[in-house]
């Protein structure tokens, strides 16, 4: 009997290990020969731990499973039966390109990976010139998924054209934004996809070395990625002779040290070099003078992990999905106070309302939705009146929002929005790299000013607005430059909360 249970950290955090132990015990008791495969998560986190049992070649889901469900799951009488997993509404409505294998395969089986289309993209790329590889990525319309949405092909072209004895591919796996976990889910659920994407990037720009800068808060992802790199090296996907082509590419996993700002690409490069993670002024662009001063591609995990499917299915196939200048699919991460949270990959263009009310099913508490923070700690808090916003880079920007890494955090009507504004400033103060005064000192002033407002001092509101302007104008990077966005969004959309005391008086 073939049974699948995720080893993704979200599944583990909800008790997957105890369920695995119970399944083994129940199988022993029933005299069933159990073949238990660990996978990534399908992304339906509200159903985790989600056990899948293969029946006539179809995987049937049972979840959320508890250890005491084990016996009934194995004998097919469990009340937690969900039917074939691929037919569940959440799965059937997705366009899984980047996440096609996540939750399906054993993440550390290269054989499984290849059986599900893995390495097809790399094999195609090995027959192309660097310039043609870069052209293919440009034609796909892929834009960086780390936050800024910069066209990946243009970045690669700069590195491709740079002349240097050594170039690098650096994967940004710092994923510090609250409400985001797509990078983690991909690395834990399909690590070879990221490796394959990095090799293709190396072939495209002429880089033979790569690093993944992975945050220390993700011990499971670190273990899986390290093991995957070892396997890839042993099987010659990495090394001096990639798949027997005579071309070289090798890579290493490096662990961050708990600094949010190290997700900013130049800070990340400093950190990778062993320095303080302060932000560098641009120019020079990392594409020209990046890691150790050499031309470097810095891309997000999802950007790089999307490259293999672009080469497998062709740039046009990818570009055919999407909206306006946002081509392909977006990996939405739905979190916070939601009935159904998780990862949903779909073409750009779905509206915020469809995500929050439709997919997420409203709040977990059953109370009305008050706000959604889109795009991490530097993203705006959007009220329900903005729910018609289609999710695309330009489209959301036009509504005063920021798509960022596409995390959405939902809050119900009990949320204290001024305390969220305060937290934005506090977070900026804690994580500031210290280089610019408006960010380092301004964020501390911001916390104090919000405290004054919360004590009923209405005169502090214009001060807070001014402070936000100063931070926007005088910050080198988006930490200081965009922290005002969530703060101002609270003042703009939840103005009645700015002065609770005074209104009560």
């Amino acid at each position, binding site marked *: 009997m073939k049974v699948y249970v995720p080893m993704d*950290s*979200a599944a*583990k*955090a*909800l008790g997957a290990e105890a369920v695995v132990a119970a399944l083994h015990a129940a199988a022993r008791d029933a005299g069933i020969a159990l073949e238990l495969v660990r996978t990534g998560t399908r992304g339906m*986190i*509200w159903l*985790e731990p989600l056990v899948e049992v293969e029946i006539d070649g179809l995987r049937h889901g049972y979840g959320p499973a508890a250890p005491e469900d084990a016996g009934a799951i194995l004998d097919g009488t469990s009340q937690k039966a969900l039917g074939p997993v691929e037919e569940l509404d959440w799965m059937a409505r997705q366009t899984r390109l980047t996440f096609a294998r996540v939750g399906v395969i054993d993440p550390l089986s290269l054989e499984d990976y290849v059986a599900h289309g893995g390495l097809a993209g790399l094999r195609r790329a090995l027959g192309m010139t660097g310039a043609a590889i870069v052209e293919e990525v440009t034609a796909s319309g892929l834009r960086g998924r780390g936050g800024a949405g910069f066209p990946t092909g243009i970045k690669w072209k700069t590195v491709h054209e740079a002349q240097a004895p050594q170039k690098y591919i650096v994967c940004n796996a710092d*994923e*510090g*934004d*609250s*409400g*985001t*976990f797509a990078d983690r*889910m991909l690395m834990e659920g399909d690590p070879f996809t990221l490796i394959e994407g990095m090799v293709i990037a190396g072939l495209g720009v002429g880089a033979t*070395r790569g690093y993944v800068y992975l945050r*220390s*808060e*993700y011990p*499971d992802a670190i273990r899986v990625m390290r093991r995957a790199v070892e396997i890839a090296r042993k099987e010659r996907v990495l090394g001096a002779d990639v798949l027997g082509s005579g071309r070289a590419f090798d890579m*290493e996993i*490096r*662990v*961050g*040290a*708990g*600094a*949010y700002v190290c997700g900013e690409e130049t800070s990340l490069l400093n*950190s*990778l070099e*062993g*320095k*303080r*993670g*302060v932000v560098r002024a641009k120019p020079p662009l990392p594409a020209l003078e990046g*890691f*150790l001063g050499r031309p470097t591609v810095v891309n997000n995990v999802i950007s790089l992990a999307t490259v293999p499917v672009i080469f497998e299915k062709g740039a046009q196939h990818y570009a055919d999905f999407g909206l306006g200048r946002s081509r392909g699919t977006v990996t939405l*991460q*739905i*979190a*916070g*106070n*939601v009935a159904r*949270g*998780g*990862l949903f990959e779909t073409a750009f263009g779905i509206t915020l309302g469809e995500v929050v009310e439709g997919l997420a099913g409203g709040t*977990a508490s059953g109370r009305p939705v008050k706000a959604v*923070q889109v795009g991490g*700690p530097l993203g705006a808090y959007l009220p329900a009146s903005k729910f018609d916003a289609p999710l695309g880079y330009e489209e959301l920007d036009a509504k005063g929002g920021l798509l960022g890494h596409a*995390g959405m*955090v939902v*809050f*119900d009507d009990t*949320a204290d929005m001024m305390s*969220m504004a305060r*937290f934005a400033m506090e*977070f900026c103060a*804690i*994580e500031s790299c210290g280089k610019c005064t408006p960010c380092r000192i301004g964020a501390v002033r911001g916390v104090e000013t919000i405290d004054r407002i919360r004590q009923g001092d209405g005169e502090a509101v214009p001060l807070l607005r001014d402070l936000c302007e100063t931070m926007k104008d005088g910050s080198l990077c988006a930490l200081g430059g965009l922290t005002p966005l969530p703060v101002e969004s609270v003042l703009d959309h939840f103005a009645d909360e700015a002065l609770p005391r005074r209104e009560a008086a």
Partner: protein
Amino acid sequence: MSPPLPASDEIEAIIAPYRNAEGPLLPMLHAVQDAFGHIPETAHRVIAEALNISRAELHGVISFYHDFRSQPAGRHVLKICRAEACQAVGGAALADATLKRLGLEWHGTTRNGAVTVEPVYCLGLCACAPAAMLDDRVLGRVDDARMTTLLAEAGA
């Protein structure tokens, strides 16, 4: 009772595999901290010499990162997520209650040395918040009852 200070040759052995790495410092610091639970004073001189950097420069790097400790933590480290998605489902109240129960501030260690409580800003478990991590073990949808069990397990 604090353990004896590690000898220089012990530290040299720990950092040796990274000597030829590109950007060796963070891997070295992680390796030292994995071995001793903190970055002991003796390590400063050894690492500074190995990389030919000043001790001031090294101190600047160590102090920049939240992860590196100059003193050992408790036997267990409990990280509680303070970030937005966890706040949306009561994370702040959970954190406050936990700290209050233990009589600690953030970064504090229980008097019996069992648990150090640290804030963390997102564990990527935002769809099953509030989240926490006890050593390397991830925990989702943590409520007061679950926290009580965890603290008991950790001997707090």
